[in-house]
């Protein structure tokens, strides 16, 4: 699971609603994959990024050189875009957990795929 995906995820445990975002990320195995840099794609993703969630996750993974926020004129700033490319797409969590910040429910993450299936009693309505 890459951090761009983590940035989209929200716990859906019953009663939790928007407080289920973002799930707390802990990793026991992380892999760095080189991915072809595509500035046009990164530029389009920047507006969708939830920064607080990204910084929290990056912090939990002890990543360095993570931009704190979109800088002015980021569309043309290759250094910024490359850093974002690295953080969002090249860091892959292979083993770990995601925890619902409201209910405490822990979801496992294995072989790069998070399992966020809920048991019946946990589902909304």
């Amino acid at each position, binding site marked *: *699971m*890459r951090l*761009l*995906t983590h940035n*989209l*995820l*929200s*716990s*859906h445990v019953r009663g939790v609603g*928007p407080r*289920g*975002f973002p*799930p707390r990320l802990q990793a026991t195995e992380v892999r760095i*994959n080189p*991915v*072809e840099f*595509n500035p*046009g*794609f990164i*530029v*389009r*993703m920047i507006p*969708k990024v939830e920064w607080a969630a990204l910084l929290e996750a990056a912090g939990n993974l002890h990543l360095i050189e993570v931009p704190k926020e979109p800088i002015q004129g980021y569309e043309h700033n290759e250094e910024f875009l490359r850093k974002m490319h690295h953080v969002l*797409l090249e860091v892959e969590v292979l083993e770990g957990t995601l925890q619902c910040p409201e209910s405490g429910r822990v979801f496992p993450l294995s*072989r*790069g*795929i*998070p*399992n*966020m*299936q*809920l048991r019946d009693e946990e*589902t*909304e309505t």
Partner: protein
Amino acid sequence: MAVVPGGPRSGPAARAQFFCTAGRGLEPFLIREVRERLAATQVEYISGKVFFTACSDLNMLKQLKSAERLFLLIKKQLPFPVSSVSKGKIFNELQRLINDDPESWLNAISIWKNLLELDAKKEKLSHKNANPLKRKVGEDDTAAKKLKTEQIQEIQETKECQLEKQIEEKLLEQGNFITEEGKFQELQNDVMEAADTRNQTDLTFRVSCRCSGAIAKTLTAQEVGRVIGIALMKQFGWKANLRNPNLEIFIHLSDIYSVLGIPVFRVPLACRAYIKTAGMRSTIAWAMASLAEIKAGAVVLDPMCGLGTILLEAAKEWPDVYYVGADVSDSQLSGAYDNLRAAGLKDKIELLRVSVIELPLPSESVDIIISDIPFGKKFKLGKDIKRTLQEMERVLRVGGTIVLLLSEDHHRHLKGGEASSGPLNSQGGRTEEPGGEECLTPAGKAAVSEPASSSFVAGNQECLDRMPPLGSLVPVDCYRVSLGKTDALISKYKKSSSPGR
């Protein structure tokens, strides 16, 4: 659709007439493709076939995503009058297909050879660039080597696509290693034995025949194949070879046309080299993605992705997009992961293990949803499909697009569920939808008049009329497609802003 920068190219190959077979219902997609990708002209279609003229080489032709197989056209003409005519008379008519007009046949074969040689030249060029020290290979030899590769592929034709691909890859590998003189000589000898393509009279061939409609009551495919085969041997001196021919001739006699062609590729276009294990039909998966208005920078979700066929087809065509696939089944996700890796698309597609009725995504966070709703009893109709659609509706942003593949039952259920409570619109019923006109357009663009086209158009309008709105999801387009034994409906919705939900 992604078009090569600079627009569709008129390629270096000579102008030629082609036709493609297509699953019923996919014809409008294929028509659009040949026009946009190949700048095709004289586009015409009947149920299950699209005819066109283009100047494309093999690489360009391989790009067609909604076709089953591609053929060079030898001949197309009105069907034989069969009703009150003797078998002998029909046999005479069949023989005349060859004897009255041998030029059409020779012309088609020469185009076929040119296409192969053009492709072989390009391969040689890329090998040369890769290793300039490699021994220089003669042009005829390269074409012959390619033919040999194709012949070996032919043997596997009846087996699974996957097996074919493995062998093809292996042969190409072996082909690349032929630099030493000894090995090369060996291969060259093999080729000389199998077929000498420079001399046409040594061409080996096989006839594949299909009969449908009125003529099928009078003649069998085998009889037709035999008559044509003998006539070809007499006219051109070719030898028949059922197991391992150079050339395959395809004949389809129906109530609408008699069509003769040469398959351009051994492996059907519908069988993708980049997909290790296909889940649903790749042609339909691509067609669905082509309706979803995928733009660069979008977030595209398939919440019931299975082996990931839809995501693979979409990611190949629209690469600058973020794809997420979800499924509840560990084995399916495992298969999907293998597929992504084999296709080199691991970086573009993410997988989640999650249920579609409880998506761990914030509301309005996804731009596009494309999904094949499972058929069969495992997926409980009624309750499950409603919850599924509600959840999809929730995570989709306003203005977003949903494209679903629905069975007849699902469709019926969605329509019938109007009485039930819940956020889904129960007053809906039939909507006068401007989008209804849209789905007429592809058929309308089909150029040359065809007896089949009017019923084709009516079918789409009818299926669009039967799509009720679902909450804030407004039906936009609908295509009935064949899955072989059953039909399904590709249904497109857009999310409008939903007051009071």
